[in-house]
């Protein structure tokens, strides 16, 4: 009888916990890592506020915007020592050397593939852990793949029926909420186990531009600048905390995502067999463009980032 509160997903234990949900979370902490990094680019406006919704009724919006322009806020704090400033400038120069040209905005999702075997047939599709959910949303999955497939399919249908009803892409948070509502249901209504899946959703919509969300089996979700789910996620989170900047660009984010994965994965070599990578950007017309990398593209990027380890002849 000691396991009285284990068997039912929907019953609280005396300490006020839902064991099945916690077990699901535990199973995800053994799954392949998925990293998400939001690159707002040099003009880091998305965090300040949502862009003004164009409204024909608004009176003289341009004049109002001009009059409310704030004084330039760029003066450095006097406490900042010259040495630290110099170091910062050196780091910046190095970054600009490594990632020349204008920094693109976008979101990176990178995933570690856990199951690898010589005998395993390669995925026929482009990926097994990263999915296109809608024209404006990609997702990364950690946990039970079977559960994930069913949820991804649910999300795709939800997004498409929204498009069909409103002739508009589904706003990202609304889609995340829809999936999370379903997940939450399984922690409250009896007889079934919760979904053993955490998601990262990377999306873009006209209301809040680029967005990155993480969701867990309990149906909780939260928005992030950079985050990680799956195995070693605390290590990855602290790496991200160290290296993330509010003006990070997309190319640098790709490098950072690969660097984080290279440190959290237990395998010594990093290649397209064990990695999946995707980006969400916008084109000149402001439409979202999702791109799931082909294996050759991943290998090329690893080479460029200097993370590709030469196959060791002597290793057993």
């Amino acid at each position, binding site marked *: 009888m000691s396991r009285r509160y284990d068997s039912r997903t929907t019953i609280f234990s005396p300490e006020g916990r839902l064991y099945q949900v916690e077990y699901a979370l535990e199973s995800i902490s053994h799954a392949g890592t998925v990293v998400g990094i939001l690159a707002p680019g040099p003009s880091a406006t998305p965090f300040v506020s949502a862009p003004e919704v164009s409204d024909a009724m608004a009176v003289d919006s341009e004049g109002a915007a001009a009059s409310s322009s704030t004084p330039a806020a760029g003066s450095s704090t006097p406490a900042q020592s010259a040495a630290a400033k110099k170091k910062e400038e050196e780091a910046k120069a190095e970054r600009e050397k490594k990632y020349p040209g204008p920094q693109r905005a976008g979101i990176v999702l990178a995933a570690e593939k856990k199951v690898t075997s010589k005998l395993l047939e390669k995925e026929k599709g482009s990926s097994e852990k990263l999915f*296109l959910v809608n*024209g404006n949303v990609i997702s990364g999955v950690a946990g039970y793949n079977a559960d994930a497939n069913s949820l991804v399919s649910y999300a795709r249908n939800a997004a498409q029926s929204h*498009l069909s009803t409103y002739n508009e892409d589904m706003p990202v948070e609304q889609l995340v909420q829809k999936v999370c509502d379903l997940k939450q249901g399984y922690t409250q209504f009896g007889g079934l186990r919760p979904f053993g899946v955490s998601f990262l959703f990377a999306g873009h919509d006209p209301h809040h531009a680029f967005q990155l969300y993480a969701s867990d089996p309990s149906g909780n979700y939260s928005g992030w600048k950079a985050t990680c789910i799956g195995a070693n996620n605390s290590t990855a989170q602290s790496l991200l905390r160290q290296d993330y900047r509010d003006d990070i660009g997309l190319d640098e984010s790709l490098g950072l995502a690969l660097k984080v994965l290279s440190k959290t994965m237990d395998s010594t070599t990093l290649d397209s067999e064990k990695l999946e990578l995707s980006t969400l950007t916008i084109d000149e017309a402001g439409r979202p463009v999702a791109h799931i990398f082909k294996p050759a593209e991943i290998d090329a990027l690893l080479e460029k980032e200097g993370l590709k380890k030469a196959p060791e002849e002597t290793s057993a």
Partner: protein
Amino acid sequence: MSIMELNGGSCVAMVGKGCVAIACDLRLGNQALTIACNHEKVFAATERTYYGLPGLASDTITVRDKLRQRVNLYAMKEERTIEPETFAHLVSSTLYERRFGPYFIEPVIAGINVKDEPFIAAMDLIGCLNFAKDFVVSGTASEKLFGMAESLWEPDLEAEDLFETISQTLLNAVDRDAYSGWGAVVWVIEKDKVTKRWLKARMD
């Protein structure tokens, strides 16, 4: 008066040599009263598959949205774009789902498949498919379109000649139909190029 003829409008598709063309008129009417002359009835399913939905205007829009949803889901699940042959069956089964309360449209489909072969098809309002090798017609001017197409179409027309043929077919057919006309749009789909042209037509 049949519900199929309430809003008027017509479509035609033709096969050429390594290319296809699909065209529609622009009329939206309420019986004999013309409401608008910018009502396009041809839409893109993929980059090289197009379809026309003449018939009841509200169903044209509903079915267009429904097909977009299904084509998007197909693209995401299969990770490739839908072929015109498959798309024809998708449209057909979408219509047959409403066998006993149908959408009042008669689709025509034109596209180029993965082997760069031209493909056209048409169906009735409950999705009975007709895979033609020459041309397909639909809408209130369909009888006149048949007549024009029968006399003008010939095999292995190049893209430019096909454009001329389908344009003459459509313009001369809709001039004999009070419920179609008021401008036209022609799409010519080649293996690496799609051209959309607006035609001037009689506005009476």
